[in-house]
């Protein structure tokens, strides 16, 4: 008898596809959060596999802060078209115009926190009862206790102390009217797994992930790209550096790393040697020790 063993990437893929299909089956109106970041690209790739040869049975949803790199937006639109998916864009600017979100002021102002308002508004407006996210448990300590099917009350809040136990492959997506679920198919992937999977599958990424030259400033130890959203403050020096991004967030908060890795192979060796977590240069996580848990409780991704 031959050996019926699956590699770890095959096991993670089988699990993620199972979760994606389970979401389509258990909910009436799911949406898949798509930011054109690598985790959401991997999730969309898996979703395409899960329902092939049919199209995705749910739309891609982007909560757009308006502070994205243009490369990100171009990639987003081209990708949705390529896989034939419906794309729904929710603009943080609309929430600000409505007065439901208020722009932060000061030197570290960002629209990161405001995304929660827009996300919850778009969930309510479109009556999404499940929102698929690319969150991984290895990213951050509050995420380590996140469920695959994570229940949210009718205010969109997460109650980490009162989570439903998850056993075997049995997921309980039952809910009361007004409540919804966040679903995380990539829960058991690590950053390294995501890169190895992308390499194996030949997944294309926005150019920002690869090393390139860019004007940057260094602020609180974080390298930020100079753009229409990030201008050097008094005393800050603009430098030209060879950098790449390990995560894809707002231009205002996403720190770059100095790097020569301009191919996926080089990035993988860089990730393997990395001594800092990938969110280590996200200014939004640095606000306090439990800033991720606090934001997640309110309804963040």
């Amino acid at each position, binding site marked *: 008898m031959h*050996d*019926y*063993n*699956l*590699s*770890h*990437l*095959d*096991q*993670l*893929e*089988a*699990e993620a*596809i*199972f979760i994606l*299909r*389970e979401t*389509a*089956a258990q909910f009436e109106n799911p949406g898949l959060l798509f930011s054109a970041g690598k985790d959401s690209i991997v999730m969309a790739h898996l979703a395409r*596999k*899960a*329902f*092939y*040869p*049919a*199209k995705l049975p749910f739309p891609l949803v982007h909560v757009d802060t308006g502070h994205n790199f243009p490369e990100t937006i171009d990639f987003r639109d081209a990708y949705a078209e390529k896989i034939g998916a419906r794309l729904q864009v929710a603009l943080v600017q609309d929430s600000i115009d409505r007065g439901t979100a208020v722009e932060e002021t000061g030197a570290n102002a960002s629209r990161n926190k405001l995304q929660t308002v827009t996300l919850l508004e778009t969930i309510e407006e479109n009556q999404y009862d499940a929102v698929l996210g690319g969150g991984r*448990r*290895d990213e951050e*300590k*509050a*995420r*380590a*206790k996140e469920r695959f099917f994570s229940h949210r009350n009718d205010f969109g809040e997460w109650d*980490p*102390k009162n*989570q*439903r*136990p*998850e*056993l*075997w*492959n*049995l997921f*309980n997506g*039952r*809910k*009361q009217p007004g409540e919804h679920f966040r679903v995380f198919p990539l*829960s*058991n992937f*690590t950053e*390294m*797994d995501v890169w190895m999977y992308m390499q194996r599958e030949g997944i294309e990424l926005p150019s920002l992930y690869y090393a390139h030259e860019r004007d940057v400033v260094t602020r609180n130890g974080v390298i930020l790209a100079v753009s229409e959203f990030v201008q050097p403050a008094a005393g800050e020096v603009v430098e030209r550096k060879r950098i790449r991004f390990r995560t894809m967030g707002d231009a205002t908060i996403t720190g770059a790393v100095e790097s020569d890795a301009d191919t996926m192979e080089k990035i993988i060796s860089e990730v393997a040697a*990395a*001594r*800092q*977590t990938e969110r*280590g240069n996200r200014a939004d996580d640095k606000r306090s*020790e*439990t800033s991720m*848990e606090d934001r997640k409780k309110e309804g963040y991704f």
Partner: protein
Amino acid sequence: MDLLRFTTAGSVDDGKSTLIGRLLYDSKSIFEDQLQAIEESSRRKGDENVNLALLTDGLKAEREQGITIDVAYRYFATPKRKFIIADTPGHIQYTRNMVTGASTANLAIILIDARKGVIEQTKRHSFIANLLRIQHVVVAVNKMDLVDYSQDVYDGIVEDYKSFASRLDSIIDIRTIPISALNGDNIVERSENMPWYGGSSLLDHLENVYVGGDENHVQARFPVQWVIRPQSNEFHDYRGFAGRIAGGVFKPGDKVTVMPSGFTSRVKKIHQDETELGEAFAPQSIAMTLEDEIDISRGDMIVKANNPPHQSQDIEAMICWFSNTPLLARNKVIIRHTTKETKAIVQAIQYKVDVNTLHKQEDSTDLKLNEIGRISLRTAAPLFYDSYQKNRNTGSFILIDPRTDETLAAGMII
């Protein structure tokens, strides 16, 4: 590279967090910024040493109270294997968390304090591992540094454990290792402090233990999860049955029966997106097409015709109760089993198990939070199942409260 999922149960005093911290640290899975963050937070609390437990205790409430209250998942990898740790609290009031962590594990690490030997907690953790059918157990006799690395102490504990464990029939492989998590003895490298120990280090064992036989590759089971109907011109007549294989091996041409309808057909093709497979086995996620047009929907099960599962509305099972409201006979619940959901009524509570002594209490009239017992269920629609002993996927279920939607219990069919 393959994958090993293991669970650890223990309380702060057992050195469980130190052990996990040690595994993460020695496999270089702790990043500088994580280490800095916990150094800073240890300093703020006035701890003398860097408290590695802070790495594993993620929630605010846990950090405030210094305890683990939930299951946390940790990841590390060596060049040989990727590991997922389900890190669970060890006290009796967290039995449900231990059961949850154990449900997806191939291996359990049971920690024994060398100064205390085999205690109630050891038996409880072993009982849960056995109940959840974890076939591989590592008994890590920790804090050997505090008993002068004595072989006599270790041998005594091993003998005690083995005589107790002879009653645990699911566990087929028990490995005992003397360690000191604090000093790193026998964690990654063989310890020079214990030359009398001839076995492998903990990490070496975790890297090499064979767990390929844990899935059932004999009885072919395919619970239908979703029906793929593209409704496009190119794939006009395509009807693919999507799901995750729960047992056995399927090949194109296999004669299959669909439950509950009883119709038979043959497997036409097996797909993983564009790729056609020559065979598919548990736990792959695939899509299958059949030669004949049969009405099949979510909750149905495609099985090989010569080897069907049991089909019944009367289910005998061991359950662990998760809710603050005790279970009583005649309670009505929703049961979720494979991809099927149906109503059920609890006919009787047969007995509960004292998880410390493993004694059966036959006169029980209820099951309270964290208690484990045997019940009889009557379901509204028949289930297609195997015993949990034979197949974890088709022998497990959860119970759900129809009023509050909360998950009430985990069940294992006898």
